[in-house]
């Protein structure tokens, strides 16, 4: 030291300059190289991006069958959509006269534009699929239970935001799909009028009209509407989604990581011999921490069956991220994002079909606008949101199809869910509904009793029956959620495959009459 201080300033300057890379690395990663268990821990909680994770993670969490990585795939798809979306914003112009042309430019002129737009479209689709499967995983492993009820509700809001982002996204190209989807969407927002009209309240309380006005900024679909949906798509919804994602991840940590069965330790096989050492020794008690943190701190409990997050968890996460990127790139290479003809306010497409994830809803609104577009979705959201607060049981947490009834109940609920939905739809397609039988029937009767509401009623009745039969709210929840998934699938398939021009039933699109 003394000699260094004695050296001339110029020599010290030169020595420091040569040492800059090492010094910079040391300043950026102050914990040093992650070579030991302890330095790996410091590395994780000293890094702003990594410290979302706990330093050590239970071996149950690392099993593929615990999550199938579905939440991570959703996150990865969102990040890919975020990146490609920002790239698309370089060229997209949210104005009716030029929006369609700018998408054509992106497709045909902009370097890599077509590829980037395809990735954006496929990542959005992947996100919708993954978020639904992720929800099903959390449900079927009973991971929504105390203390994770709140995170389940946050997740449901995230599902709605994901669908909102998809909806506002396919409006922007201003093609036929976009124009008529905005029209239908704005009129669904207006559909509470179906009820206020029937009750004669519209003059005083026009909720539907207010919602439509706020969405469109006008009483017609035009430039005001496009700029609003653009604002929602690139600013309001992504910011809301990012904020809630932060809450979602934070709560995973605070709620004790991923749910696992009580006897998870006993059921795990012995760790492989070359695996990094498992925490088996009880560390010294940290009394300072114990004074600050309520409950049992990790250091005070029994030996844990955990592994360091670095590398075990991070390698798995990187693998899932790469898989998601691979899926998006592959689909983007194989299939182009659709772009229909320029929006034509005089002639809707026939049939005018939404993207697949909204076709179930489109089938429901073809029975009643208010019930299909607002009433039943709200009922479903309330029903699903209540599940963790009604199911206070403990049996089966962390196990696939855990709880009374188990997998065999899920099979039976699937049969009921598919059967009830197919029967009701087949009946409606074959025999019609109230309006065809009695043309004078008041609209309120159809709003209250239509195939959609009857289906919801059948599902609710079935899950209550199952709840009584098994004497378990979890069994009722298993039945309800399975029925919900079945209804979603059946209605989506009917809307996608079996509906043709004028929303009539056809066994196959090849039978559609030519125009």
């Amino acid at each position, binding site marked *: 030291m003394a000699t260094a201080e004695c050296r001339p300033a110029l020599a010290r300057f030169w020595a420091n300059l040569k040492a800059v890379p090492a010094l910079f690395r040391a300043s950026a990663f102050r914990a040093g190289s992650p070579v030991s268990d302890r330095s790996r821990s410091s590395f994780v909680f000293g890094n702003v991006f990594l410290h979302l994770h706990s330093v050590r993670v239970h071996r149950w969490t690392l099993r593929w069958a615990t999550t199938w990585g579905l939440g991570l795939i959703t996150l990865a798809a969102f990040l890919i959509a975020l990146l490609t979306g920002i790239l698309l914003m370089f060229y997209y112009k949210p104005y009716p006269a030029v929006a369609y042309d700018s998408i054509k430019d992106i497709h045909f002129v902009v370097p890599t534009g077509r590829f980037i737009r395809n990735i954006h479209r496929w990542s959005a689709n992947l996100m919708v699929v993954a978020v639904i499967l992720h929800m099903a995983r959390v449900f079927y492993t009973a991971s929504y239970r105390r203390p994770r009820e709140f995170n389940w509700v946050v997740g449901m809001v995230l599902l709605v935001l994901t669908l909102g982002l998809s909806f506002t996204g396919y409006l922007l190209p201003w093609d036929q799909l976009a124009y*008529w989807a905005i*029209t*239908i969407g*704005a*009129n*669904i927002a207006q*559909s509470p009028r*179906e009820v206020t*009209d029937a009750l004669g309240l519209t003059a005083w309380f026009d909720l539907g009209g*207010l919602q439509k*006005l*706020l969405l469109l*900024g*006008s*009483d*017609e679909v*035009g430039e*005001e509407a496009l700029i*609003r949906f653009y604002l929602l798509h690139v600013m309001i919804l992504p910011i809301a989604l990012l904020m809630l994602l932060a809450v979602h991840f934070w709560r995973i940590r605070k709620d004790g990581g991923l749910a696992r069965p009580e006897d998870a330790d006993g059921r795990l096989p012995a760790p492989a011999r070359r695996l990094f050492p498992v925490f088996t020794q009880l560390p010294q008690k940290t009394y300072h921490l114990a004074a600050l943190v309520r409950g049992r701190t990790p250091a005070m409990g029994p030996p844990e069956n955990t592994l360091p997050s670095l590398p075990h968890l991070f390698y798995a996460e990187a693998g899932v991220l790469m898989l998601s990127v691979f899926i998006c790139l592959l689909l983007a290479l194989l299939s182009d994002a659709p772009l229909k003809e320029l929006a034509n*306010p*005089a*002639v*809707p*497409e*026939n*049939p*005018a079909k939404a993207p697949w994830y909204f076709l179930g809803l*489109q089938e429901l*609104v*073809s*029975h*009643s*606008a208010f019930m*299909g577009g607002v009433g039943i979705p709200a009922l479903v959201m309330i029903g699903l949101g209540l599940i963790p607060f009604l199911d206070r049981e403990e049996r089966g947490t962390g196990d696939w199809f855990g709880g009374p009834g188990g997998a065999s109940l899920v099979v039976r609920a699937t049969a009921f869910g598919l059967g009830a939905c197919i029967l009701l739809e087949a009946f409606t397609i074959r025999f*019609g509904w109230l*309006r*065809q039988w009695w*043309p004078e029937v008041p*609209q309120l009767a*159809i*709003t209250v009793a239509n195939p959609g509401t009857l289906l919801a009623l059948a599902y609710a009745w079935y899950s209550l029956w199952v709840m009584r039969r098994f004497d378990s709210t979890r069994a009722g929840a298993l039945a309800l959620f399975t029925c919900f998934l079945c209804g979603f699938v059946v209605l989506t398939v009917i809307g996608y495959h079996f509906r043709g*021009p*004028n*929303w*009539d039933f056809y066994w196959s699109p090849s039978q559609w009459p030519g125009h």
Partner: protein
Amino acid sequence: MTHPESTQPTSRLDPERVPRRDFLGLAALWSSLAAGFVALLGILRLPKAAVLPAPSRKFRVEVPESLAPGVPFEPAGRNVTLFRDQQGSVYAISKVCTHLGCIVRTDPAGFHCPCHGSNFDSLGEVLKGPAPAPLAWFAVQRASDGTWIVNEGQTVPQGTKEG
């Protein structure tokens, strides 16, 4: 009468029935929340447009004298179908579906919505499908030069004809 609480000296840590500090603090908290709520309403006032930009709802059209009764006549660029009846009177029916706002297809038998399958008869009454109400009828007026003025902003009862 001595209140049991007044016999003992109270300290800041003892619970008071109406804690004055808490009262002031809570009052401040709730006032700021109320102020925030009012501010939110003010913020929402902005996106609720006061002036709605839209083209004129009235238009002028020439309906051919030879138009056969019940045969639809569709002026270009407008979502309205015009008809003549047996006496030659003219009436106008909206082509905007009352279900979710798609534009219906017109043929002599009636109207068909491509989006969700509503069917209407030639007077706009619902025959089938999810439409909650019949198609709207618009006011028509004969101008002095023999053309017809259709007002899409003014709905009239079904069966109102002119001429």
